[in-house]
């Protein structure tokens, strides 16, 4: 990353400064280290929103820059969450089981500990044996590696299959949707080894950490902000170079890029896999803050919402993805949290809990129809920039 990269992209610098300021302000206002104006649960909401912004950047890279509308990126997000969740759950259960067993007369044997953990984790699905995929759950380093490797590998295999047979456009969208549906159906089975529809729970408790949640939530908030900042920097760097020009070329005219001698499939596969890895990291940071992950999280609808956020924010601009995601998900939690005032029409009271999705759906139609550039096109107008071609 040389100087000219930042100079050529002042928006990156502005974004990073704003993100740092935001992190600082939240820290000062938090309960853990500051004046306590922001509740711990709200800090978690903000931290989760930062993770969603990170996957939105990945989505913007694959859709806004490479023109591939993936409706399956939440599969990678969920996988990342599952990978870190396995370690969190295993390690915490191990400590609980060891504490419980050490109260017995005889010191526990390794077999007893292993059976105890198995019973604790898999009792809900009527089993006590560790499935093969939990073989490395005791190793934080390996599970952290899996956060990147498993989504990356799935993306690599799926993308290789899809791109080499030249599945494009809406067909690819439907295929990615099928992928995430297949994954969620698979995870819903008890036999999947990931506790079926119970999912993994208790992830907010870090093993071996006695600090209160108000502090832990800030740690995760900082980690999320750091990941978002680094992710933004990485993606901005990727799209600013020659690689970025080629994938924009693929978006605008795939055949022409292919005729120019570029291996279109390799570029697409690289972008698809890179974004999957970023999504996995985002998920691994998100679910410890959410506390629970279950197969419903990777249902197709989640990935469509991701596309919605990016589209509302404005495709083809990284800050657009961030703005759209932060705006929609925060407004959404404001409306569905019951804080928005109801509108009493006299004959009918509009409760936003019920009507928010209708409003969101319709406003989404309106944005698509009348403001294809999304919210960030207004930012561009303020900045006096002309809109980039994004079709």
């Amino acid at each position, binding site marked *: 990353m040389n100087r000219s990269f930042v100079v050529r992209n002042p928006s990156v610098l502005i974004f990073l400064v704003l993100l740092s300021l935001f992190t600082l302000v939240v820290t000062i206002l938090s309960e853990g280290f500051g004046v306590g104006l922001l509740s711990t649960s709200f800090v978690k909401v903000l931290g989760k929103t930062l993770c969603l912004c990170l996957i939105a950047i990945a989505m913007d890279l694959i859709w806004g820059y490479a023109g591939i*509308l993936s409706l399956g990126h939440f599969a990678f997000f969920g996988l990342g969450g599952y990978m870190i969740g396995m370690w969190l759950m295993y390690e915490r259960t191990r400590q609980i089981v060891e504490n419980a067993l050490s109260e017995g007369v005889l010191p526990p044997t390794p077999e007893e500990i292993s059976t105890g953990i198995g019973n604790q984790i898999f009792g809900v699905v009527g089993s006590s044996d560790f499935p093969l995929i939990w073989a490395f759950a005791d190793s934080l380093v390996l599970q952290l590696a899996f956060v990147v490797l498993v989504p990356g590998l799935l993306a690599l295999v799926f993308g290789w299959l899809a791109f080499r*047979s030249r599945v494009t456009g809406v*067909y690819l969208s*439907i*295929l990615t949707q*099928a992928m995430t*549906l297949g994954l969620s159906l698979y995870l819903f*089975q008890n036999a999947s080894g990931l506790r079926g529809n119970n999912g993994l729970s208790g992830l907010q408790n870090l093993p071996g950490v006695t600090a209160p949640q108000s502090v832990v939530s800030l740690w995760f908030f900082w980690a999320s902000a750091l990941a978002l900042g680094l992710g933004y920097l990485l993606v901005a760097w990727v799209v600013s170079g020659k690689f970025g020009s080629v994938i924009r070329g693929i978006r605008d005219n795939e055949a022409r890029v292919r005729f120019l001698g570029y291996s279109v499939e390799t570029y697409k596969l690289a972008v698809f896999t890179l974004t999957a890895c970023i999504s996995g990291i985002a998920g691994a940071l998100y679910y410890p803050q959410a506390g629970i992950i279950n197969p419903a999280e990777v249902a197709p609808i989640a990935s469509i919402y991701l596309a919605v956020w990016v589209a509302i924010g404005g495709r083809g601009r990284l800050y657009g993805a961030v703005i759209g995601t932060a705006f929609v998900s925060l407004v959404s939690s404001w409306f569905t949290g019951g804080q928005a005032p109801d509108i009493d029409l006299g004959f009918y009271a509009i409760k936003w809990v019920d009507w928010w*999705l209708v409003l969101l*759906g319709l406003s989404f139609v309106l944005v698509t129809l009348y403001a294809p550039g999304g919210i960030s096109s207004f930012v561009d107008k303020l900045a006096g920039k002309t809109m980039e071609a994004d079709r």
Partner: protein
Amino acid sequence: MKSLLLAMCLVLSLPNGALAQSPTVQDLLQSQRALIEKSSRRTIGPAIDALVASGLPQMQNVLEAWQAKGMWQRKGDGFFFAARKNDDGTFILQDFEDGADVATVSSAEIKQLKPNSGVRAMIATALVRFQLTDTDITKRADALDSISRDPEAALLAPLRASIEGETDPDILARKVRLERLMTMAYDTDVPSRVAAINDMSGDLGVDFRATLNPILSTSRVVSPTAPDGNIAREVIVGSDALTHSAAYALLVAAGGAPVEITADARDTTLEAHIDGGRIAGFPVAQLSSEAVRDQAYDALVTRGLAPPRVTQTDIDASLASYRFFDVYDDPSPAVTSAAEAALAASETRVAFGQAADLGLDALSLASIYFLAAIGLAITFGVMGVINMAHGEFIMMGAYTGFVVQQYVPNHTASILLAVPLAFAVTFGAGVTLERLVVRRLYHRPLETLLATFGVSIALQQLAKNIFGTQARPLTSPSWLDGAWVINDVVAISYIRIAIFILALLFLALFLFIMKRTRLGLETRAVTQNPRMAASMGINPDRVNMLTFGLGSGIAGIAGVAIGLFAKVTSEMGSDYIVQSFMTVVVGGVGNIWGTLAGAAMIGGFQKGVEWLNPSNTLAAQTYMIIFIIIFIQFRPRGIIALKGRAAGD
């Protein structure tokens, strides 16, 4: 008073007079009087048997009256009568022998016999043999039901006897079948049992298999040598049928080996012998592995403080000196081998039947997918518009059906009304969507996808706000209830047949509209080349609008059909949308036959996987999706791909 006395004398003299010739009903009842008066389930058996054994035809009336609490005993002499109540509270007694009125008495003079439910059940069993020859056909059928529900060796003879005089062919067939089944199970003569089993070998009936299974029941015997009796097979220790631990447990239960000391028992013993932080010299803190615990326990054993551990060597040695056999409970080898052969033959045929049943299931699932996808085949397949709200049109159709049923209580009429109404509603919705949204996005297919998704979540939430989150029933007309039962294995519900027929109708309708009508011609022209079509005088806007409306309308009708067998909820559309898109994509875009092939393939594949792994539809769907993803590799344009310029991107 005088006349009454006279009458009583007359009545009294009647049975006594008859006694001289042959025992009357009253004689028999009197001979069992003590048992009948104090009837209880445990003691009444001999009395009922004696009454039935008399063979008197009137006994049926006696037993029926008794069972219905219609038998009364006169306190004066202890005689039993049927009785009916007069308006003035007195009773008219009737003799069981000939049904003649005997006397009129006050309620104080007689006592009603009230058999408890246990006794009534035994009377019912006894009555069955009378009912087998009853003149009333429903009573005979009831008797057969009762026997097949609760077969009993004693009923075999009366059943056989009743076959001769049976006139009704249906009842006769049932009697003969039941007689064969009961012969297998209860006859004392081995050759006739074998003959009965061989007669019915390969039969598909559940009752046949249910009769064979108890004949083939076995018990497991542990013995050093082959035991006496009808041995089914020797069970090898370590096979799937008998694991080592199960075999050892059997051996222990049979007293052939000492009880194994489990890890828990060992630990309990160890804990009981903690002495100053040590167990048999081992510090407690060191006992953190299985091996050390075993050593500590062995040390306890050498001190005589615990029973010795049964080691794996001991277990193997014990098991080696015994053999394990499954012995048939039925002593006759001829019968059991015939039954094994018959069951095997049945199971082969049942497997074929199940395959046929699976085929029907797959067909009906394919019809459902086809129904859900056919509207999409028009909007997506022909027009190339990704309509994510398609599932919500299905839901709208189903809710239309629900609303119609609230106003039209007759189910047949309401369904007939709901189908055109659902079409109208969703046609209107489709046209509106096309005019307001889709039209502006024809050149941006990915954005159509997102915009219609917005419509989809709005419609879904709207339905939730209007109809609530609970599932609403859409009741099918009564003539669609039930199933077409081909035999005990193959059956298909009428609703699924109706959906299959509906799918065929839609196929025909689609083909007719596309190939034979002006709209179809114009649609095909506009899809191939809108500008050229426009210059030929076709209005592409109007054609697109109508085509989109048609596709949506068909989705609405499909919604009514799907709502009939699945509950109507606001989320029902999203259950079908991904599958519908896959059906169209797998089949090949732009070709209705492709959609049909896609639906057949997906339905068939899913049912096939379900068959391999029953009780797990989730796995079936997962594998189906993996299969589709791989299938797309080999035929990216679907099963039936359009050729030429029309297939362009």
